[in-house]
């Protein structure tokens, strides 16, 4: 299978802010490609360039073999774009929004109903409700339906699950899988959630307008070279300072309810455990763990 999206050395600057500093990537047909990174990394800018809404300062990009600068009209017919914030008409009903976007693309709901059926049936019972009155998860399902109604070859989803409850997030990702497997739609998706990164076929780690790395999630976590330990105790706040003062600690990051610690050469976990106990911590738990995407991200962004 060929590459349906290619980005080559793309730079984009807004005034003094350099949003993209020469990024390149290739997305194969039929894969879910994730852009992973914090806010302000440049993900939205890249989406807008791919959606032909912005022009890159330098570099080239193609979607389905079409140049984003020259063939923008054709590209607009074959992409489904879902911007980062909810961008449907809040004062129109669910059904009216869907109908409007269908006619916008010169199609009808009936013609491509098979594509959205799986998603739309979640919100169909609210079809006469105004979109502004839907919950966050429902809104995203409607937005996805609207982005899909014209059977696009590529879906560009900019942080579709931000601000969505965990159950709806899970459902949303299941829908993306089905779109990929049943309909062969290529999906480029960005997310700030590292757990969602694992669900992508390949991911690009984005920071400050750079791609740190592009690979499969497994390869990225697998390439994590250091030995990683999870540490917790009863007094988490004091523990952070104590860990940072230990000469054997290479990096210490807060990670949910624990700290992830990497150990320098010449030290080992027993010394770590000893140090923590020596500092007077109770109920200390030190475990060796596999690196997650976030650990890999932290390590790469150093």
């Amino acid at each position, binding site marked *: 299978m060929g590459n349906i999206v290619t980005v080559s050395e793309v730079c984009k600057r807004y005034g003094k802010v350099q949003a993209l500093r020469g990024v390149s990537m290739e997305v194969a047909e039929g894969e879910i490609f994730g852009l992973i990174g914090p806010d302000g990394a440049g993900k939205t800018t890249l989406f807008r360039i791919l959606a032909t809404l912005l*022009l890159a300062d330098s570099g080239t990009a193609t979607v389905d073999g079409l140049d984003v600068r020259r063939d923008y009209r054709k590209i607009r017919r074959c992409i489904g*774009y879902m911007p980062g914030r909810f961008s449907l008409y809040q004062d129109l009903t669910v059904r009216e929004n869907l109908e*409007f976007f269908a*006619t*916008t*693309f010169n199609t009808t709901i009936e013609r491509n109903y098979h594509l959205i059926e799986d998603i739309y049936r979640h919100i169909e019972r609210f079809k006469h409700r105004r979109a502004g009155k839907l919950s966050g998860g429902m809104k995203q399902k409607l937005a996805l339906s*609207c982005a899909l109604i014209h059977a696009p070859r590529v879906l560009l989803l900019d942080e579709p699950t931000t601000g969505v409850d965990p159950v709806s997030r899970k459902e949303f990702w299941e829908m993306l899988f089905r779109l990929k497997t049943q309909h062969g739609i290529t999906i480029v998706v960005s997310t700030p959630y590292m757990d969602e990164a694992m669900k992508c076929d390949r991911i690009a780690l984005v920071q400050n307008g750079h791609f740190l790395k592009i690979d499969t999630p497994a390869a990225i976590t697998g390439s994590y070279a250091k030995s990683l330990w999870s540490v917790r105790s009863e007094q988490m706040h004091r523990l952070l300072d104590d860990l940072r003062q230990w000469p054997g600690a290479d990096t210490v990051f807060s990670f949910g309810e624990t700290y992830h610690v990497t150990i320098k050469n010449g030290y080992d976990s027993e010394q770590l455990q000893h140090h923590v106990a020596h500092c007077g911590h109770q109920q200390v738990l030190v475990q060796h763990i596999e690196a997650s995407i976030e650990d890999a991200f932290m390590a790469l962004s150093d």
Partner: protein
Amino acid sequence: MNQLKSFVTKEFRHIFRDVRTMMILLVLPVVMVLLFGYVITTEVKDIRLAVVDLSHDELTQQVIDRFSQNHYFILTGSAASAAAGRAMLEHDQADMVVVFGENFAQEIVHSRQASVQLLVDGSEPNQAAARAAYAQQLLLSVAQELSATMGIEQQFQIAPVTHALFNPNLRSEFNFVPGNMGMILMLICAMMTSVSIVREKETGTMEVLLASPLPPLVIIIAKLVPYFVISFINLVTILVLCKYLLGLPFAGSLPAFMGISIIYLIVSLSLGLLISTLVRTQLAAMILSLLLIIPTIYFSGMTFPIESMPVMYQHVSACIPARWYVAAVRKLMIQGVEVRHVMRETAILATMAVVLVSVSLATFRKRL
């Protein structure tokens, strides 16, 4: 075509679902017409008149008597000189001073022409014009009468007379209606169009629309159509109110009036479109549109007569579309002139429309 139809439907839904805005759109013109028609009236009554009679003869006395008999005028006093009369104006003891020259009677008898000086308080141009018009009218009828009684075959003149042929009483609402239409249509077209486009930018829906295959022209036309329709309804509302409520006769050609109104609507709509390409927030669009209304009020001739403006302001007023529209509507509606007499206004408005439409189409961005 389907795209356009569905987009226009969507626009109308936005309007109908925002009940408050829709009510304002439909009720505003009614309120404006009633307000200007009944409440804010420049109709003049009880003109306080001071007389400066340097001639002291039978003729001037007759003229003065006629003024005092007329119920529009109240004789408040007399002065010994023109300067003294002017002082009365300055001290607000009179609204108007009539000055008869020393040789008034002689001039009439010998040359059949005598001049009378009318001094009016010009700080309120509309009222001053109206007062002067009353006085001139009165002088004219006095002159006619006197010539008849004196048995002079050839009629003599007392003053340069401008008879207000089309609105004999200078009823103020007649003059306000065209100005009102110019303002309301500009307000609704420019403000509502720009706000509705900028709203899509602000809420992010424009991003989706631009990333879709909708041609920008469809977006633009679909945005203009609903406000064109609403403005047209307003236009008809104003006409009906004028005819049946204010009793304003529609003197001229209705098709010509509609034609020039449509051109003016296009000008106003494209101004709204232009505003929408310049700003990013609804608030900014609203402020810019309001800034458009201010010159419309002051420079269109609806509040201040263009003739009494300084030359520089007259040039400014030439750039205001409402000026030409108001002028044309006055001619067509009140004076009832033939269509060829409004060709100049029509041509200027049409040129403005072409320029504005092309500029706003050219500046409408196909990307973010």
